[in-house]
């Protein structure tokens, strides 16, 4: 009886979900309510979690609570602590939530809301959640070992080293692209720049307070920090309104890029308690709180989606990113559907705190469901804007010009009618001089969030406040990623330097610190600076490169999992990781090949290099170059970008070969569980 009620209930869920998808796909009208998007998402997640994750838990992983977890076996009260599932879920979600799922879907909206929605949902349920879940379990069964160590154990030492080099390269691109998002959001915006700059003294104050004044009071200091942050945001409005102050904080992209590099360098060298830790506390709470606020906002307001289901830019001619739907939509969305970085988190601190194997399903699969929902919210916020406004925000100035008249003309010609007055009013609403070409996703999301949140709190009068609040929220946790990431990269570099000179490899050596930090900052700073001066806006070049790198890491993680299950002799259930792994390989390798060998210079680095070379031979100049030296610089950019792309492709191909070899020559399983009933 109970069983048949369940069957009816789930059949109903499926029917409602199918109806929502039908409305999304088939609607013919001005707009469609976001209700349908939310219903489609929630039913997909419910069915995926209830049925697919259970199949994985039972058939592929054979979760067994009789098998003790590292938190129990190695309990030390510090790193290894058996933690109740809901608490650990919070930890895991906070660790995987970042800027990626907020930015990727916004950029992908140029193809309409439908392609993005489908991939965010299907990708999450069949690939992203699977990766996070499976890697978490593998790590739990290997004493909480990291992804790199597991690759080394299961695929061989060389494979481990190749993977480390890959991770380092991804790190550099990640830091560059995130810094780029901040630069684009803050350029020419004194309000935003002031508020974000104030987070530094606020964090320093919190650090000192937490260390010396009231040691250990994290909650207390975070509340004080939040109040100061809101004061800074309020002060930013005053700064923007006062000409001498506004001038001081009105910075162009280049200056901001240099400031960010300087900041990254200093933050990575300072003691962690002074700047990094307090900033992390503040950004973690603000991040989780704002995501919750946005969810409430969307559910209450239920905005209409004005973006068409599918736009003509699926053909690859879009202004936001170049390249056709396959493979570039998948590369662009990245984190909201499947993110390789999560494999690092799933094999980081979380596996050391899991109290029993069955908890991994909710934590691994469940947290990624939530992350994917964040991506759906970002897509909703972007698609709720008028398409004309969306393209004005996201198209580079090289395409739409620098004035509202030009922009309105160009964008209306694309078929997304908008008036110059509407563009000017949109800027005024959010307290900015202009909203043209604010690429990078963050400003678009901020405008979308401001409209939704001002609906529920404060009305139109608070629109500018909410816009800058959203910018502050994104910039704050991106800056935390830049501090923490530069630090990680610094230690990776020092390990490598140690191979050359043991003295430089010593992490206590001050000279070694400075050198390694300098190398890392120079690495991401180079890509950032080249992106900032790129007339196509930089995001255009950097985001696809980042997407390829991120999806490649996911392909590596899923390949590792597939190899492990193959070695353990799993049958058909092996497809659970094999299929997404193969899909990601096809996607990343196709994208990398197009970035290298496509004939369109807007897509391919090498085709663009050829164009530049021809221009140099003829003595012509191409924008943004103003002299011959800058033309050479353009050529160098293309070659470096192409090299990076080739490196990513090389790493992923090598990993597949290592994987096949590991299965063929039978590198033994490193699960240490010869006595377990089910191995892997």
């Amino acid at each position: 009886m109970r069983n048949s009620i369940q069957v009816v209930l789930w059949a109903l869920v499926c029917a409602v979900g199918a109806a929502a998808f039908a409305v999304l796909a088939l609607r013919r009208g001005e707009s469609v309510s976001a209700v349908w998007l939310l219903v489609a998402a929630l039913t997909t997640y419910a069915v995926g979690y209830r049925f697919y994750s259970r199949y994985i838990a039972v058939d592929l992983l054979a979760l067994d609570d009789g098998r003790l977890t590292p938190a129990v076996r190695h309990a030390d009260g510090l790193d290894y602590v058996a933690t109740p599932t809901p608490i650990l879920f919070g930890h895991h979600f906070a660790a995987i939530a970042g800027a990626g799922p907020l930015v990727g879907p916004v950029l992908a909206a140029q193809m309409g809301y439908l392609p993005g929605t489908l991939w965010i949902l299907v990708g999450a349920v069949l690939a992203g959640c699977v990766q996070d879940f499976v890697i978490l379990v593998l790590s739990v069964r290997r004493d909480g070992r990291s992804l790199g160590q597991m690759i080394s154990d299961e695929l061989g030492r060389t494979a481990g080293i190749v993977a480390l080099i890959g991770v380092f390269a991804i790190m550099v691109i990640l830091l560059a692209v995130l810094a780029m998002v901040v630069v684009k959001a803050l350029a020419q915006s004194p309000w935003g720049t002031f508020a974000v700059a104030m987070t530094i003294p606020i964090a320093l104050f919190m650090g000192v307070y937490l260390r010396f004044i009231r040691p250990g009071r994290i909650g207390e200091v975070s509340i004080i920090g939040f109040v100061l942050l809101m004061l800074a945001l309020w002060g930013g409005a005053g700064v923007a309104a006062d000409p001498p102050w506004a001038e001081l904080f009105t910075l162009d992209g280049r200056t901001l890029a240099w400031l960010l590099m300087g900041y990254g360098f200093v933050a990575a060298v300072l003691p962690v308690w002074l700047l990094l830790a307090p900033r992390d506390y503040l950004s973690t709470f603000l991040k989780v709180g704002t995501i919750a606020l946005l969810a409430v906002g969307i559910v209450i307001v239920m905005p209409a989606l004005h973006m068409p289901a599918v736009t003509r830019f699926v053909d690859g001619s879009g202004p936001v990113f170049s390249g056709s739907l396959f493979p570039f939509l998948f590369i662009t969305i990245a984190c909201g559907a499947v993110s390789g970085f999560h494999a690092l988190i799933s094999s980081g601190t979380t596996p050391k705190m899991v109290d029993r194997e069955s908890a991994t399903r909710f934590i691994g699969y469940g947290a990624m469901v939530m992350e994917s929902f964040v991506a759906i919210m970002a897509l909703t916020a972007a698609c709720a804007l008028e398409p004309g406004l969306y393209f004005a925000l996201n198209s580079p100035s090289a395409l739409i010009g620098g004035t509202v008249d030009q922009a309105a003309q160009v964008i209306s010609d694309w078929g997304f009618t908008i008036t110059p007055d509407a563009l000017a009013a949109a800027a005024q609403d959010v307290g900015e001089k202009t909203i043209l070409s604010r690429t990078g996703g963050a400003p678009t999301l901020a405008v979308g969030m401001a409209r939704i949140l001002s609906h529920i709190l404060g009305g139109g009068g608070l629109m500018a406040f909410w816009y800058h609040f959203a910018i502050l929220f994104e910039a704050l946790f991106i800056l935390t990623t830049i501090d923490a990431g530069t630090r990680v990269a610094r230690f990776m570099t020092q390990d490598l330097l140690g191979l050359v000179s043991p003295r430089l490899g010593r992490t206590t050596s001050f000279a070694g610190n400075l050198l390694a930090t300098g190398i890392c900052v120079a690495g991401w700073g180079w890509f950032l600076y080249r992106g900032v001066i790129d007339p196509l806006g930089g995001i255009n070049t950097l985001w696809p490169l980042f997407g390829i790198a991120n999806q490649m890491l996911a392909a590596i993680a899923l390949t590792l999992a597939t190899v492990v299950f193959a070695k353990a002799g799993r049958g058909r259930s092996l497809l659970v990781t094999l299929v997404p792994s193969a899909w990601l390989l096809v996607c990343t390798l196709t994208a990398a090949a197009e970035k290298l060998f496509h004939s369109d210079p807007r897509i391919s680095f090498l085709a663009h290099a050829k164009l530049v070379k021809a221009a140099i031979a003829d003595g012509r100049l191409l924008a943004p170059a103003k002299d011959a030296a800058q033309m050479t610089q353009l050529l160098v950019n293309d070659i470096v970008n192409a090299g990076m792309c080739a490196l990513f492709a090389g790493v992923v191909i090598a990993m597949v070969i290592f994987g096949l070899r590991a299965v063929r020559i039978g590198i033994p399983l490193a699960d240490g569980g010869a006595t377990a009933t089910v191995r892997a």
Partner: protein
Amino acid sequence: MKRGSTLRRSLSESVSRLGFEAANGLRILRRTAHLMCGVGDYDSYLEHQRGVHPEAPCLDYAAFIRQRQDARYGRGSARCC
């Protein structure tokens, strides 16, 4: 008279029960918030130390936080994009 006191007792029981639940909820919330930024549960640490190494000295709360900060950020922490 008797009924009144039973009512009072059950009322005060529910109130104290509610208070207990609320305090427990707050504790869980606080623990979750702390763990979100990498600071584990101090009580669990104390319990572990007393149970397993009763002879060893325990870190005080401030030292515990310092230890956790260094463990989380000392070598940098991989961040998600």
